[in-house]
C-alpha cells in the first residue's frame, strides 16, 4: 500500500480515465495551464493538450451548458466548478438540462457528465464561498450525488462517476485535498472503482451508529476513538454516495446499535441528516431505535469569517461526542 493525498488520488483518477476513453475531457476555469485552482488537474494539460483539457472563461452558465451539450452529443465531459458555490450560476443547466433530459426524452438522450469541485466549508473563506450543496443536488431525480472522504473514496468514486452514463455531481472538499490516506494495492490499480450507491462502514461498533459524509467522517472517527476510551463503541458509516442513498446499510447498523446520530457540514434544515432520519422512521429500523435519532449539522447561519466564529459553525468532535452521549443518555 501507499500513502496518497486526496489531491493525488483525484489526479490519478482523471489521468487514468482520460487515457482509458478518448471521449473523456476536462473543462473549467484554470484547469489547464494553471494546473487547476487547487492543483487537482496538475500535469494533465501538459500530457493531453488543448483538446482534452480546456480552460474556460469565467462563464459558468455558458460553459456548463456547453459541457452538457457535449455530453448529449456523445462526449464524456468532466465539468469542474472552482467551488460548488459558483455552480449556482449554472444550476439551471445542471438540473433542467443535465438531470432531466434522459427522463424527458424517455431514455433516448443520455447525459454522461460529471460535475465536480470543492463543496462546503473551507477555512476563512466566509459566507459566499462556504455553502454545502449536498441537499440541493441530492433532492433531484436524474442526478447521482457522491461525496468522498478518503483518497480511496475520491479515486474510486471519480472513476465510477466518469464511467456512469448518468449526470453525477461529485462533492469534494478543499480541506481534504492535502490529507494523506493509506491506499491499498487494489485501490491503486487502474480498474479500481468504488460503486456508486454503496456506503462503507469505516469502523465497526455496537452502541451507536454515526452516519456521515465527506470531511465530518474523519471527525466521527476521532469522536469514536475518544468515546471508545469511555467504553462506548461507535459504528461509523461513511455514506460515500448521497443519492442514491444506501439506506439498507444504515438500517442494518441501527438494528444492531439501536441509536442513530447523523453528522454533516451542511445547514440543518431540509438536509442530508433530515433525509436519513425520515427514511429510518419509515423503514423497519424504526422499531429498533431506543431513542430519537439526532442530527449534528453546521450552524443555521451564513458562514462567518473569524476563526472562533467559523470553528463554532461546523460540527466539531466535541459536538459529536455530546450528541452521542445525549442519545445514549449518559
Amino acid at each position, binding site marked *: 500500500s501507499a500513502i496518497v493525498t486526496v489531491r493525488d488520488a483525484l489526479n490519478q483518477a482523471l489521468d487514468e480515465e482520460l487515457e482509458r476513453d478518448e471521449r473523456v475531457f476536462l473543462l473549467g476555469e484554470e484547469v489547464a495551464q494553471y494546473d487547476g485552482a487547487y492543483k487537482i488537474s496538475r500535469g494533465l494539460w501538459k500530457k493531453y493538450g488543448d483538446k482534452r483539457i480546456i480552460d474556460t472563461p469565467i462563464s459558468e452558465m*455558458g460553459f456548463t*451548458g456547453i459541457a452538457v*451539450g457535449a455530453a448529449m*452529443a456523445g462526449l464524456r465531459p468532466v465539468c469542474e466548478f472552482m467551488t460548488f458555490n459558483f455552480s449556482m450560476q449554472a444550476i439551471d443547466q445542471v438540473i*433542467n438540462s443535465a438531470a432531466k433530459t434522459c427522463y424527458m*426524452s424517455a431514455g*433516448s438522450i443520455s447525459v454522461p457528465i460529471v460535475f465536480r469541485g470543492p463543496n462546503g466549508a473551507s477555512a476563512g473563506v466566509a459566507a459566499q464561498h462556504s455553502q454545502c450543496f449536498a441537499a440541493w443536488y441530492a433532492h433531484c431525480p436524474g442526478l447521482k450525488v457522491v461525496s468522498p472522504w478518503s483518497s480511496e473514496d475520491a479515486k474510486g468514486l471519480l472513476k465510477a462517476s466518469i464511467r456512469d452514463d448518468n449526470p453525477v455531481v461529485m462533492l469534494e472538499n478543499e480541506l481534504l485535498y492535502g490529507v494523506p490516506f493509506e491506499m491499498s494495492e487494489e485501490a491503486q490499480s487502474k480498474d479500481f472503482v468504488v460503486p456508486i450507491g454503496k456506503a462503507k462502514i469505516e469502523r465497526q461498533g455496537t452502541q451507536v451508529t454515526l452516519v456521515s459524509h465527506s470531511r465530518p467522517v474523519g471527525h466521527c472517527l476521532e469522536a469514536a476513538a475518544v468515546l471508545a476510551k469511555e467504553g462506548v463503541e461507535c459504528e461509523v458509516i461513511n455514506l460515500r454516495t448521497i443519492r442514491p442513498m444506501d439506506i439498507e446499510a444504515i438500517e442494518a447498523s441501527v438494528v444492531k446499535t439501536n441509536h442513530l446520530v447523523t453528522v454533516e457540514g451542511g445547514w440543518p434544515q431540509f438536509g442530508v441528516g433530515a433525509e436519513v432520519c425520515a427514511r429510518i422512521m419509515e423503514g423497519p429500523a424504526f422499531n429498533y431505535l431506543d431513542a430519537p435519532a439526532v442530527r449534528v449539522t453546521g450552524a443555521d447561519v451564513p458562514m462567518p469569517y473569524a476563526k472562533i466564529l467559523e470553528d463554532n459553525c461546523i460540527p466539531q468532535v466535541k459536538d459529536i461526542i455530546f450528541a452521542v452521549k445525549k442519545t445514549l443518555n449518559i
Partner: protein
Amino acid sequence: MRKMLLAALSRVLQGPAATAAAAGRTASRVMVASRNYTDFANEATFEIKKCDLHRLEEGPSTTAVLTREEGLHYYKTMQTIRRMELKSDQLYKQKIIRGFCHLYDGQEACCVGLEVAIKPTDHVITAYRVHGFAYARGVPVRTILAELTGRKGGCAKGKGGSMHMYTKNFYGGNGIVGAQVPLGAGIALACKYFGKNEVCLTLYGDGAANQGQIFETYNMAALWKLPCVFICENNRYGMGTSVERAAASTDYYKRGDFIPGLRVDGMDVLSVREATKFATEYCRAGKGPILMELQTYRYHGHSMSDPGISYRTREEIQEVRSKSDPITLLKDRMINNNLASIEELKEIDVGSSTDISACCPQAAPQAPLGLVAHLGAL
C-alpha cells in the same frame, strides 16, 4: 381535345402516413391530373432577397434554383406542419392536449428551409416551439400527436409533451428560454472533437436573444471556433413583448458582435435554404461560428393560453397572412413558373389534412399509457 389526349391517371405521392391512411381512402380521392407530368418545367430560378450582412464581405446567393421535386417536397412538408399545428389548436381547445402548447404556424419556412439545407448527420437544437422541427427532423406526425395527447406511441412515451420532443441528431425541445444555446455550442464542440465535419444549428427566439448565457456562448464559440450556426428566429414578439420593448438593439444578426451575421427573410423557404447553405459552409470551412437572424412571424399567440391580440393588431396578423404567408409564397412561385398545377397542390393539401386527422385520438384511438410500467421506468 388536348386535355383528353394528355389525360392520365396519376397518384400523387403521399409520404409516410400513406399506408396507414390509405385504408380510409375512397376511390374518389384518386385524382386525374389534367396534364401529363412532362408538361411541367423541371426547375425554375428565383430572385431572393439580399441578406443584410454583418462582418461579412459577401453573403448568400440572391438567386435560388428550385426543382419541381424540391418544390413539391417543401410544399408538402410546410403544409403538413401547418395542418398539424392547426389540428393541435383544435385538440387543445377540446382539452385533449394540456399544459403548454406553442404553435409554429407562420414560421414553417424556417424549419423546412433549414432542414433541406443540412444533412441528416448535422445537428439541430431549438427551444419549446418545437413541433415543426420534430417533424422536419423525422418524427412522424402520428407520434407527435400521440405525445401531445399523452397516449401510447408518443415520441417521448408521455414523459415530454409539447416542449420535449427528440430524435436522432435533434436535441429538443427545451423549456428554459436560452438554455438550449450553450447546449447547442456544446454539441458543436462535440462535432469539432469528433472531426466528422458536422455542424450544429442552434436556434433561439428574439426574446431569448437578450439572455446572458447566449453572450457567454458567443464568446466561447468564437474563441474555440466551434462549428455552431446560431439562428435567431425573430417573430417580433417575445411572448407579449415586442422586440422594440425588449431590446436596445433589434439587429439580432449583429448581436454576436465579433461573430459574423446575416439577416434573412424567414418567410421565404428559398431564402432560408440559401442562407443556411452559406452559413453551414462557413462553419464547415473551420472559420468558427456564424449567426443568422430569420425574420418570421407566428400567427398564433405565444402559446395556446395567449389569444395573441392584446399586444398586436388583428390587422397586422392579417397583413402578414395575405402578403407573406410562406406556403402561399411557394405555391404562387410554383404555379406561376409551371412547376406544379393547382390541382396537384390541392391534392397535397387535402392529403395532409386527411393523414393528420387519421392520427388523432378520435380517429385512431391509441391506448392510454400504462401507469406502473411507465412512471419510473424509461
